[in-house]
């Protein structure tokens, strides 16, 4: 379970997140939705321990995410792929596994379960964007964490790859994991999420299941509900 409790974060005199609270539960897919600049990435970064909140607290299974215990329970896919160009796919997964205190067996299992066996000996610098995203995702899940934070996991992927990632997200939730991901693709959020948290101007403006949000706003689809809730179409990607 991942929870944000009154998170506040500013950079200089610019406020990025102004009091965000929500809970992403186990066995559910929680989507963080918002226009560009709403504070999605900053919120996720506080939740996986890259940023320290100015106020409030982030918790991962009741642990602070910037502790060794918190990090061990969390799998993270940041907005940038963050791969090493000269390392092969296998070396990436093995490196990550060993940093989690695991071994070659876990790395090989991740290679197989994410369909990366054929790419195992390829250097990551030579992979396509979609393949790189797949490797990043496999790396984030190599230690089979209970909680997963994914920042725009389908960004830049083609249709088959996007469908694969969505299927993976659903399967993680079915296995009882807590999945929190950010997106600005309405169809993706509507079809994948059990629960949606809508951010605008660094604050939570609505929270609920997609159907609930549509019912509350009287909109026919999630996109209409979203525009109604944030009060403008500005910043929609």
């Amino acid at each position, binding site marked *: 379970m991942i929870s944000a409790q009154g998170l506040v974060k500013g950079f200089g005199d610019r406020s990025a997140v102004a009091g965000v609270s929500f809970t992403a539960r186990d066995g559910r897919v929680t989507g963080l939705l918002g226009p560009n600049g709403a504070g999605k990435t900053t919120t996720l970064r506080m939740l996986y321990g*890259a*940023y320290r909140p100015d106020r409030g607290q982030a918790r991962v299974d009741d642990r602070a995410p910037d502790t*060794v215990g918190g990090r061990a329970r969390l799998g993270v896919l940041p*907005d940038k792929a*963050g791969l*090493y160009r000269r390392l092969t796919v296998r070396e990436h997964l093995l*490196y990550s596994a*060993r*940093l989690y205190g695991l071994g070659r067996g876990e790395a090989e299992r991740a290679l197989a379960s994410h369909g990366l066996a054929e790419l195992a000996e390829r250097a990551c610098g030579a992979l396509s964007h979609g393949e790189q995203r797949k490797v990043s995702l496999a790396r984030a899940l190599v230690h089979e964490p209970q909680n997963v934070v994914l920042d725009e996991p389908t960004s830049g992927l083609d249709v088959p790859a996007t469908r694969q990632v969505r299927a993976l997200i659903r399967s993680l939730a079915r296995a009882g994991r807590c999945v929190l991901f950010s997106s600005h693709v309405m169809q993706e959020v509507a079809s994948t999420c059990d629960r949606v948290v809508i951010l605008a101007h660094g604050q939570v403006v609505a929270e609920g299941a997609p159907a609930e949000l549509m019912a509350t706003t009287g909109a026919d689809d999630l996109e209409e509900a979203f525009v109604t809730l944030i009060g403008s179409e500005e910043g929609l990607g």
Partner: protein
Amino acid sequence: MSANLLHGAAVVFEKELRDGLRDRRALLSAFAFALFGPLVAGMALGALARRVDDQHRVAVSVDGGERAAELLAHLSGSDRFVVKAWTRDQPTLVTAVREGKLDLALVVESEPAGRRAAHSPARLTVLWNGARRSSKRDAEQLLAELRRWQRQRTAAGLLVAGTSPRLLRPLDVQRRDLSTPSQRGALALATVPIFLLMAAFVGGMNVAIDVTAGERERGCLDVLLSHPAPRLALAGGKWLAAATVNLGVVTATLATAVVVIRGPQLAVLGLRFGHDLSAMAAALLILAPLALLAPAVQMAIALFCRSFKEAQTYLSLLVMLPALPGFAFAFRDLPVAGWMRLVPVLGHQVVLADVMAGVVVVPGTLLGLTATTFATTAGCVAVVGVLLSNEALVARP
């Protein structure tokens, strides 16, 4: 905790070393830069040694030598000239000098009848090719010798005539070039420790930047920091990888210096340089702690930079910094105070110069310098560990 620290550091070290060794372009540039210094010093010493050697053996091809037998006997008697009689015609001799087949020739012109009687001077022509350095240098030596011989002959003639040679030559101006080849050689040799010192700051620089500013720029650091390994383990592993590459480059630079700066050249110049394995081991013993310190300092600085290029700009300037005291000692002959031998970089310059000059280094000095260097290195690695926890430096885009 310490087992976790060691395990994390070992994992990061293995990965960073593998990654660094695969960056062929960066390695090539580090080795090329580091080898450049000793190669240049070796070439300079070789050229100086050849010049000193040549001073003793200026070859002169003489046409018409039988017309100036006394002069020729004088030149042949000197150990600085090798006189060869030219047996072919004069135009062939001129062509040979012009085309560079010969550096120097002397033509003793035949005298028209009656001129001897009129006490006209004997007419000699020195042939050389000014476009060639060796030819010009040989000609200057021959002309100087001819002037000297002429002065001696004039003085002897005046004495026979009962006149003091002073009347003709009231001043005896001697030219003394205080910049001897030996000194110029010593200067070239003194640059070797400076280049070795610079190698310690160049060898692992690219790896030190890549594992910090480079990873930050590519977003890899963000992912790495999401792992549960202690920050100090990450800093330690990265530092050890950069230091290993650095140590390799320093060793290669030292080996190049030993190979290119050859003993016989130095013997000609009256210089000495430790060539045996024990001297090389001593130099490596002095340089190794410095090769460990440099990447730690570079990583701490690079973490303040947002991109590889930005870090490269600052750290390229830093490469010059350790060389400054070295140049000051080499060219300004500054006095060395005792405390200087304990200050990292400064002390390494002084102690290394001592070793190369054949001065016995007190073990206590070496131990003291190594201890201060290790302490500074440990401090810098700890700082890198702390900086890796600083979100303003590593997490913000």
